[in-house]
């Protein structure tokens, strides 16, 4: 850490930990309901649990991206954050809006569009908050001493994320148009601009952790985000097969959707080969593990499992079944959850001055959560494929099929317990790190901690 204002990142990361814990609790509520124990129905009916689970996910990832940007951008452009106080205010606002939304869900206050359940008045506040954040980062970049590709890619990813939220707010009474525009948010986020954010954060981590020449890393960064947009933008078509849209989307979505895994494959090859080539043996190995792990798991969850149902012939049968839930978990975990956990693992020693990365808990966190998530994905996969076969091929009744697959949700709960153990270790470690210190006094001068010992 070289700039004092970077410390605000800690509070964004702490918010991540809190929201992630809550998200997991709601995941369990749903898993139990699927397994036949919908005991909380009168207090937290399934749709409230679900909206809370997914919105908490989006919120903690957003908070993680913001924290990452506040940490990375000052170091990249070599100056303090332009409005450091605004960063704190903006975090508080995000949390207040988020918590209001979540409480509202439990009282039937929502918009009822998957992933965009936050009620309209709060939508405006979210957009405003993200725009303030983007402005703050933007001013920092603009007034920075240098403009690196990593900083620019990250910045434009964040800016486009805020702008793409807007099409989702256009009112319409046609369900098809509603759904069409919803994908401009959901798809163009996770298979578009978020990959820019991912590319930016990964290349920052790779530069720091491997010491590879910036020019090399950033050149490939362009190639990868180029591939992302080349496939991902028109790949939106893989959601336009069966919602009342013209048939030519079979071709557009089929072809470009099938190309999307290339971007994730590129990301994985890029991270692994940079890690191999890197000369410097950075002591924070656990951060390296999360970084490379993220690139590989995002390919498995997004690229491989995404490809499994992206062709129209397959999607006809899997569309809107638990197969989608299988893909969604692994993809969100591999690409974005692991990304945030990677930057946290890297930043914590720098922010707090404590080097806890050799602790067994840190290693256990990585392996338990990843093995747990793979097992969860398998449980969803078996349930999903069975559902597709019995309901869509054999033609059994929905509820009869759900009875057949209840047992796989018991499996899901077991797998999720292992996963939760991993996350608990991660949070335990996070708490051990303590609060950010950031500065030490040397000769009566305040010097950022990371700079002090080296000088």
């Amino acid at each position, binding site marked *: 850490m070289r700039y004092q204002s970077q410390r605000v990142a800690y509070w964004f990361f702490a918010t991540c930990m809190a929201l992630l814990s809550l998200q997991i609790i709601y995941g369990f509520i*749903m898993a139990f309901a*699927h397994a036949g124990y*919908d005991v909380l*129905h009168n207090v937290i*009916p*399934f*749709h409230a649990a*679900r909206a809370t689970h997914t919105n908490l996910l989006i919120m903690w990832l957003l908070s993680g991206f913001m924290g990452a940007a506040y940490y990375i951008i000052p170091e990249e452009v070599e100056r303090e954050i332009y409005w450091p106080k605004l960063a704190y205010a903006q975090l508080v606002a995000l949390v207040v809006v988020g918590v209001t939304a979540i409480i509202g869900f439990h009282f*039937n206050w*929502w*918009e*009822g569009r*998957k992933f965009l*359940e936050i009620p309209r008045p709060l939508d405006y506040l979210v957009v405003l908050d993200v725009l303030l954040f983007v402005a703050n980062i933007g001013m920092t970049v603009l007034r920075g001493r240098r403009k690196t590709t990593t900083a620019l890619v990250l910045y434009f990813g964040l800016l486009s994320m805020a702008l793409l939220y807007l099409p989702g707010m256009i009112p319409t*009474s*046609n*369900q*098809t148009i509603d*759904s*069409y525009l919803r994908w401009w948010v959901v798809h163009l986020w996770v298979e578009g601009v978020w990959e820019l954010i991912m590319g930016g954060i990964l290349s920052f981590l790779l530069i720091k952790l491997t010491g590879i020449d910036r020019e090399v890393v950033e*050149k490939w960064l*362009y*190639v990868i985000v*180029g591939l992302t*947009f*080349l496939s991902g*933008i*028109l790949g*939106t*078509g893989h959601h*336009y*097969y*069966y*919602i*009342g*849209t*013209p*048939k*030519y*989307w*079979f071709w557009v979505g089929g072809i470009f959707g099938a190309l999307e895994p290339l971007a994730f494959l590129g990301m994985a090859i890029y991270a692994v080969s940079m890690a191999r080539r890197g000369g410097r043996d950075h002591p924070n190995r656990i951060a390296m593990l999360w970084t490379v792990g993220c690139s590989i798991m995002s390919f498995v969850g997004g690229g491989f499992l995404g490809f499994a149902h992206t062709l129209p012939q397959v999607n*006809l049968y899997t*569309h*809107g*079944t*638990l197969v989608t*839930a299988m893909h969604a978990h692994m993809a969100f975990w591999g690409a974005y959850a692991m990304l945030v956990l990677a930057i946290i693992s890297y930043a914590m020693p720098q922010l707090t001055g404590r080097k806890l990365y050799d602790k067994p808990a840190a290693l256990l966190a990585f392996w338990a959560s990843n093995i747990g998530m793979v097992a969860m994905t398998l449980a969803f996969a078996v349930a999903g494929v069975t*559902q597709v076969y019995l*309901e*869509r*091929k*054999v*033609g*059994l*009744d*929905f*509820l*009869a099929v*759900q*009875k057949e697959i209840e047992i796989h949700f018991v499996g899901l709960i077991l797998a999720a317990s292992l996963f939760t153990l991993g996350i608990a270790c991660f949070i335990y470690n996070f708490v051990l790190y303590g609060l950010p210190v950031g500065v030490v006094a040397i000769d009566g001068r305040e010097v950022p901690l990371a700079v002090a010992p080296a000088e």
Partner: protein
Amino acid sequence: MLSKSAARAFFLVGTATCSAALIGLTVDSFARIPGQTHAEKITPAVARGKDLWDSSNCMGCHTLLGEGAYYAPELTRVYDRRGPAFIRAMLRDPEKMYPGQRKMKNFHFKESEIDDLVEFLEWIGKMDLNGFPPKPDLVPLAVPMTAGTAFVAKAGNRPQIFNQMCIACHSLGGQGGNVGPALDLVGDRHDAEYIGRWLYDPLAVKVDSKMPKLPLSKDQIQELVAFLSQLKSEAKP
């Protein structure tokens, strides 16, 4: 070797081209969607129904057009599958329609709101969705395997109301729900008179019956009685 500026050019040109193509295709799609979805049939009632659909977050349990949650049945074709009377009964009191099953929330809708939701689901049901949901293509195999009896009722000779309403809870020939008993050979167990009384009001026949009194007209009951009472073992060819 590829230079950094060439890599940047690849990124910029690719992104610009694809974005332009997406916008072009979107303009074209928006011109065609109203035809394909029969947008002229979006009456004020349908629009109100959609608002209710959204503000109740039905998608938090159900899928519609294949989008939503995976906890409750896909509702795109529910209007054809169950018919308006069943849907109305379901929205009035979900617990009564599927006793002891996975729970749907009771929203305590007003009758006018139920009408709006039914109109909304009717409009959805008429859309051209390029073949979704798929027709189960292994059914002909499954029916003889699971039916167990020689009598296999063909969908064609069943009263429509039976396929919509009764099949939600009862199976016949291995197809249908499992809330109530299978109705294969029900004619052996009960005569026409009993079935008629039963359908008029199950609770009058058996006070603790789990089968609700369904919104059936006299004609529909007669048709059902005629159909059910001939489901006997003598019907074997």
